């Protein structure tokens, strides 16, 4: 087993002339929770999209548990045990909670090719377990998620990631659109993952949250990683200086 769960070397993504991500060197240790912070447009989501194979990188290498990986798409990443909660929720509004949890990996009772019979009971039971495990509270499992609040929908997305993730969870601004109580709910789920030892990359604008939850903070600015600081050796002002460019105009390496 390698020292790192995830490591990127020189990871870059250019959209035409826009260097959205430039030479990112990043590493995540087993069980570690790392926050990625930075201004809007700093390249945080781009970084996530390269790791999860949603887009193909311009340059650089990605190592997962020591071996180099080339994910052709998010499904390939998922097959390696990486679950992602994307910034724009990947949920189907007209489906109920169990169907969303098992979207694309439905449990089957009888295998008949595309007409395989769903194991609705098991999916329902496992959904209940997943929600209990993550302490997510949902009014009604069998109604569509269309009428649920933003927080409840986000919790469904996170419960899905938490239920299936075996090796790594990535969350892109999971609480950006949530109220105070809903945010607290999501933070509790993240604490639960820490206890279970599942490594996490958390993208967030909320520094209070970041200092509450994670071990290490990585700062992005204009597509580059400008700082990587342990929580104990930094504070809010320090981080803000890096985000705004007062500090750290040279690249940081971990």
């Amino acid at each position, binding site marked *: 087993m390698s020292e790192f769960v995830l490591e990127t070397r020189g990871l870059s993504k250019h959209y035409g002339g826009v260097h959205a991500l430039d030479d990112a060197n990043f590493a995540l240790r087993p069980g570690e929770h790392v926050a990625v912070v930075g201004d809007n447009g700093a390249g945080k989501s781009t970084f996530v999209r390269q790791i999860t194979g949603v887009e193909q990188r311009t340059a650089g290498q990605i190592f997962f548990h020591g071996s180099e990986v080339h994910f052709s798409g998010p499904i390939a990443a998922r097959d390696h045990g990486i679950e992602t909660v994307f910034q724009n929720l990947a949920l189907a509004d007209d489906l109920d909670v169990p169907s969303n949890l098992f979207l*694309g990996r439905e449990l089957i009772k009888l295998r008949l090719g595309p007409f395989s019979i769903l194991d609705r009971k098991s999916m329902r039971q496992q959904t209940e377990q997943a929600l209990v495990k993550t302490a997510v509270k949902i009014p009604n499992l069998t109604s569509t998620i269309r009428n649920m609040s933003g927080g409840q929908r986000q919790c469904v997305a996170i419960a899905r990631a938490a239920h299936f993730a075996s090796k790594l969870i990535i969350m892109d601004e999971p609480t950006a659109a949530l109220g105070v109580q809903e945010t607290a709910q999501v933070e509790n789920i993240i604490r639960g993952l820490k206890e279970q030892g599942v490594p996490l990359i958390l993208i967030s604008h909320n520094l209070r949250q970041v200092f509450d939850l994670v071990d290490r903070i990585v700062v992005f600015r204009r597509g580059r990683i400008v700082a990587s600081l342990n929580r104990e050796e930094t504070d809010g002002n320090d981080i803000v200086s890096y985000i705004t460019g007062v500090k750290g105009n040279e690249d940081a390496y971990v």
Partner: protein
Amino acid sequence: MADKQNHGIGGLKYDQSKTPWPPETGVFVALVLITVVFEVLNRMHGTSFLFNTRAAVDAIFNKPRLDIIILQVSITGIIALGATQVMVAGGIDLSAGSVVGATAMVAMSFAQTAMVNGHANPKALFGPWAMDLPAVDPILVGLACGMLAGMINGVLIAYTRIPPFIATLGMMLSARGAADWWSNGDPVSFPTQGYANLANGDVLKYLTFGLLSWPGENPAVLFIVLAILLSLVMKYTVYGKRCYAIGSNEAAARMSGINVDRHKVLVYTIAGMLTAAATIMLTSKNLSAQAGMGMMYELDAIAMAVIGGVSLNGGRGTILGTVLGALIFSVIISGFTSIRLDAYYQEMVKGAIIVGAVVLDQWRQRRNASRT
């Protein structure tokens, strides 16, 4: 678990003993109301819409009318079943009516009989090799024809990313052209007895070993059987689940690893197959095929689905809803006939119903959008 629970974010309360009305409830209520209106209108003329008023006949209901209500929408209804799953998956199929025309010509050409009243079949299209084939041959040829058209629709939509509206509009024109070309516009007639029996026989009697009988209503039997089958498929299989997922949020479905493109091809192919099944019933019933058959059937089918609560934006609707929508459609036609309203008015009212159903759908969409 207790049946009443108090949980949820922010102390949200939810009473599990209260299940919401199924989405088809409104459609069902509309069906009942419309039926009652026609019953009242008939009573004002001293007749009845649903009930038997003839002293010579010993029956409670007006069975001929009930039979017609089912039979007259069976064929477009079967097409509407296919349209429902296409629309649930976020697509639309405008080609169904023309595919009926093309499939009718092709299937019928393999259903012809050699001798008509002691003379050689005057409409014979092929040589003796294609005469008096068992009914299964035209059935298979017809189904293949419909599936091919559907598959072309699906491949165009999935892999060239043409909007479904445009791709199936192209098929609408091409399939009608193929139907005209097939026999230079001549009808193809005089099927074998076996083929004629497909629609005009009494399959219910056969299936129930003589217990029940519903002669000449085979299209209705097929409509009901297919409706039940597809309803189960939409509800209990991966296929159905993925139709709803794709229609609801195609990007999310893709992200979740669903092979959206392959699924779309399958959905349109099945729609084509159902259209072909409807066509076989239609040509068997009419004992003849013309290139102009099925004109505008796609609009009737889409209307039935929309009336039944299937959303034009995808993701929502059920087979049961479409069946109820088809019945509403049929009750209105029969209702107007029963009060002797002109066919012209019927067409106008049909148009108004379709527009009304779409307006209702859009209104539902907006109400849902404002809630989230």
